[in-house]
C-alpha cells in the first residue's frame, strides 16, 4: 500500500522534528490545563469528561490546522512535491497517504490525553461509555477537520496562511449553531445551519451515543475534501 508508505514517511519525519513533539504535546497539555486547572471539574464533584469533550472542538480549531499546514505547503515550498508527483504513485494514494499521516499524528496526540480519563476514573466512578464514544467521535471529527486542513494546505505554499485559513474556517464552521439559533434566522434556514454545523455532530458521541447520521456527516466531509484535494493537483498539473 503506497498510501501507508507515504504516511510512514510523515511519521518518520515527525519523529526527527521537534515541531512535531510540540504539536503532539499541545493537545494533552492544553486540555489538561483547562480541564483540571481552569475548568469547573473539581467544583462539580461529578466524575464526567463532559467538559473535556466540550473543549475538544475548540482545541481542534488550533491544533489540527497546525498538524495539516505543513503537509502540502512545505512540499510545494521546498520543491519535493516534484519528486513525490513523479514517483509512480496514484494521486489517490498520495492524498490518502498525507491524510493517514496527519490522522496518525492526531491519534497519537489524543492518546496522550488518556491521562485525563484515567485521573478522573481514579477519583470517582467514571462511566466509560461516553469516554469511548467521545474518543471515537474525536477521531471522526478530526478526520473531517484534517481533510479540510489538507485541502487548504494544498492550495497555498505558505504554511502560516494555510494555518490561518483552516483555523478561521473551522472556527466559523463550529459557530454555525449560533447563527442557527439567532433570532433573525428563519427556522427553516436555522435547521439547515444546525445540521451543517461542524461540532454539533460531535456531542452525541460524547454522551456515548453513536448516531449513524453523525458518522455519515464526518465521513462525507472527509471524503469531500480529500477529493477536492486531489482535484486541486489535477488542476495545477494542467495549468
Amino acid at each position, binding site marked *: 500500500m*503506497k498510501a501507508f*508508505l*507515504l504516511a*510512514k*514517511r510523515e511519521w*518518520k*519525519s515527525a519523529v*526527527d*522534528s521537534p515541531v512535531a513533539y510540540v504539536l503532539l504535546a499541545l493537545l494533552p497539555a492544553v486540555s489538561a490545563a483547562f480541564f483540571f486547572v481552569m475548568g469547573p471539574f473539581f467544583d462539580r464533584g461529578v466524575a464526567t469528561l463532559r467538559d473535556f469533550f466540550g473543549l475538544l472542538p475548540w482545541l481542534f480549531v488550533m491544533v489540527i490546522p497546525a498538524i495539516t499546514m505543513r503537509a502540502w505547503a512545505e512540499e510545494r515550498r*521546498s*520543491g*519535493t*512535491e*516534484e*519528486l*513525490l*508527483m*513523479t*514517483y*509512480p*504513485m*496514484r494521486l489517490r494514494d498520495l492524498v490518502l497517504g498525507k491524510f493517514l499521516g496527519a490522522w496518525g499524528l492526531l491519534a497519537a496526540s489524543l492518546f496522550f490525553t488518556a491521562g485525563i480519563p484515567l485521573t478522573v476514573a481514579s477519583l470517582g466512578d467514571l462511566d466509560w461509555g461516553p469516554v469511548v464514544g467521545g474518543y471515537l467521535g474525536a477521531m471522526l471529527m478530526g478526520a473531517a477537520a484534517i481533510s479540510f486542513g489538507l485541502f487548504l494546505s494544498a492550495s497555498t505554499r505558505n504554511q502560516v496562511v494555510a494555518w490561518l485559513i483552516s483555523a478561521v474556517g473551522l472556527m466559523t464552521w463550529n459557530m454555525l449553531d449560533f447563527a442557527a439559533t439567532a433570532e433573525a434566522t428563519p427556522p427553516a434556514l436555522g435547521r439547515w445551519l444546525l445540521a451543517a454545523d461542524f461540532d454539533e455532530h460531535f456531542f452525541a458521541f460524547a454522551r456515548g451515543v453513536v448516531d449513524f447520521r453523525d458518522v455519515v456527516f464526518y465521513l462525507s466531509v472527509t471524503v469531500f475534501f480529500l477529493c477536492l484535494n486531489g482535484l486541486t493537483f489535477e488542476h495545477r*498539473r*494542467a495549468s
Partner: protein
Amino acid sequence: MMSRESVVSASALVKTFGDVRALRGVGFEVGTGEVVGFLGPNGAGKSTAIRILAGFLGADSGTAKICGIDVALDPVSAKQHLGYLPESNPLYTEMRVQDFLQFAAGARGLSGGVARAAIDQAVERTGLASVWGRLIGECSKGFRQRVGLAQALLHEPDLLILDEPTNGLDPLQVVEIRELVRELGREKTVLLTSHVLSEVEALAGRVVLLHQGEKVADGSLAELTTQAGVMPVQVSAICDGASLAAACTEAGAETIRELPNHADGASSWLCEWSVSSIGAAQTQAHAVRALTDAGLTLIEFSPQNATLESLFRTLSRPSSVEVSS
C-alpha cells in the same frame, strides 16, 4: 536512430504559463542507450519539457511517451520506467539518507530484500556510504546531489532524466558528478539538461537545442557545428597577440577571441571562419595558406566544436535545422 526503439518520444509539445509560451511545439526522440543533452539558455523551456515527460506538468497539447507509454494517459506505468533528478535537486532535508532512500525504493514498488539490494547498489555506485545515517539537510551539496542521483537510479530505470545535474556545485564536485553521470551513460538511456556546452560535449552523444520554446537543432555537436556554418579554430603562432590577430582577420576570420597565453613567445586566438560556401576543408586550407603567407610561424591550427554562443547566433533563426543521425 530509426532502427533503435525510442525510450522517449515527444511530439508537438505546447505549454503556456499565462502569457509565457514556454514550449511552442517541441518534439524529439531518445533511442535506447543514447545519452542526449538538452541544451538551451535560461528560460528556453528545457525544464518545462522535462516536467511534462516526468508527468509533473500536463502539456496544453502534444504527446509525451516513455517506453511507448503515454505519460498523460497512464502516468503510473510511464513513471515506473523513469528515474528523475529534478532541477535544483529537491530533497526531504529533515530525513536521514537511509530513510529517504528506503522511502524512494518503496515509492518505486520495491520492498524487502529487493529494496535492500537496490539501495545497497545505489549507495555503492554514488558513494553515499559515509553519510548513510546523516540527515540530508546536514550533507554537503555534493553529497545531496549524490542522494538525488541515488534515488533516481535505485530501481534500474530504463530512462534517467537529469535536470542540470551539476548546477551549483564547486568545480571539484562538478568533475566528480560528471564522472558519475558518464558512467551511468554507459549502460543507461540518459536525457540531461545543461546550459554549459562543454558539459554536454563531455557527456552526451547528441544535442537537442532549445531556444525560446522551440527546438532549433538536433544532432551531434560536430554536425551542429557544420550546420551552423562556422568553424572555430584555435590558432597559435610564435609572435605577439596583436600581429596574430591582425593576420587572422586578414585571413578571413569573422570573430576572434584571445586565449590565455601558454608558451613563451607564442600567442593563441580562437577564431571563427564562416564555412557556408566552400566547405570546411577548403576554408581551412585557405586560412592556413593566408596565415603562412603573412609570414607567421604557426604552431597550432586546430578546429574546435562550435561554442554555444555561435551555435545560438547562427541556429536560432526562424527556420529550424534538423540533422538526422
